[in-house]
């Protein structure tokens, strides 16, 4: 996959990161290298192998449906930059 400026811009937008032109060019090159590295896997025959979603031999970790105490409100909001009452405040959202 060719990593051009458009691809970097799209990914940067999805991550809400603003990049300078110089950064975009540099990152395009670096990403190109990373993707090429990963592309090596394309040469492996995986026809009869299902995709690996987890690498640990662990499954079925479940908990019982029993309530536990939630966080007290002062702790909940302690790091909130703009709390209002018991709410988190965020810049006004316009649909």
């Amino acid at each position, binding site marked *: 996959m060719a990593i051009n400026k458009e691809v970097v811009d799209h990914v940067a937008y999805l991550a809400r990161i603003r990049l300078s032109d110089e950064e975009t060019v540099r990152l395009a090159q670096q990403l190109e290298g990373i993707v090429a590295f990963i592309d090596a896997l394309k040469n492996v025959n995986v026809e009869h192998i299902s995709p690996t979603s987890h690498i640990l031999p*662990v499954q079925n970790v479940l908990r019982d*449906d029993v309530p*536990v105490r939630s*966080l007290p409100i002062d702790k909940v909001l302690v790091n909130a930059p703009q709390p209002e009452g018991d*709410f988190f405040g*965020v*810049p006004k959202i316009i649909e």
Partner: protein
Amino acid sequence: MKYEAVIGLEVHVQLKTNTKIFCGCSTEFGREPNSQVCPVCLGFPGVLPVLNKTVLEHAVKISLALDCSVQEYTKFDRKNYFYPDLPKDFQISQYDLPVGRDGFLDITVEGGEKRVGILRVHLEEDAGKLIHKDDISLVDFNRAGVPLLEIVSRPEMYSPEEAHAYLTALKSAIEYLDVADCDMEKGSLRCDANVSIRPRGERELGTKAEVKNMNSFKGVKDALAYEIKRQIESVENGGKIIQETRLWDAKNGKTFSMRSKEEAKDYRYFPEPDLPPFVMTLENIRKIKETIPELPREKAARFIREYGLSAYDAGILVVNKKDAEYAEECMRAYPGENKKPVVNWLIGPLLSEANNRTGGGELTALGILPERLIELVGFVQAEQISNLTGKSVLTDMIDTRESAADIIKRRNLIQISDTGSLETHIEEIIKANVQSVESYKQGKTGALMFLVGQVMKKTQGKANPKVVQELLKKKLA
């Protein structure tokens, strides 16, 4: 009509649990903002979500009830997007290995039965709630992490009525399982619709619009009817349907484009590394299957078989599980092979009382014990009171909790059927209405009904109209 509509529904139901899907915070509704949150559901770094066992069981149960094949191996994925109601900036959902897939739901539509395919059933977490103020938006995360089950139908419904029937059947089936409340007004059932049109006979699907923000079953029907009409008119006027999200405005009865310049959706799903996969043995699936009760359609079929009900009557009686059980008690208690008299009372006067009084239209909410209803129906069947009087006695029964016998006695309602006492009344009426008598004799049958009405009035509705009619006929012959 030249065009046909194609509808697919995405339904979210909130599963009934004590705690959230991945943490032990309570799911109780209506508490103070941000009082049911913890590091897990607030998406703090380094926390580990752990799946609620009950959530998985409920999801399997619903999947089985919808005849889906339940996947032995299921996993969760991250759906990445930014929105202030989403604390982690991703939603834990299921992408390629949902709990259930390829099921169906049978529905009753005009002209018979129809099977609607279910594409997939998957689990995900709810987002928080936003409140918009003048210059700020406020976030309450109590709802963040509440377990949701998304049920995606195939695009196999062709009218708003079919979509409505599908929703009704889905809600009814899920309610029977007692795993979700399914109250659309309260948001515990939400429905989005994909709508497109195509020329009749065409196989390929047209460009679809996604309609959101429908807050009631009627809203879904109205929104779909509007949207279909809008698309047809647009195409007929040379326009083109664009793929977009449209919101239903119930007040003005219109859908309108969100007009957000949203890029093509790019959620970059990837496996949720913090939740190991889930493997369900066939034994486990079988155990859950055993807990599934008789579902509405099975119950309706049995009512038809065992009590001789019509498909229509059975369909009405099984919608709500408690009512269906109540109806069955009434039918069992009712003497005689033919259950129609008591069924007519259930789906007639009782149901309309329930609709008027309880909004939800629940028969059991009226508080009429089966034996009390049987007693009332008995009075009417024996013609001791008229059907009309019976309805008024029913209202009285609901209000006062008295029995039919007590009310009839208290209000002196026993119908006059004995010809002796009726004859006096009838003779007086004949004397007082010479003209009507004349026109009846000249062949105007309507005049007879007028005379019957007069006798009824004179006896304050207590005369047995059938007997009055016969006596009048005899006297005027």
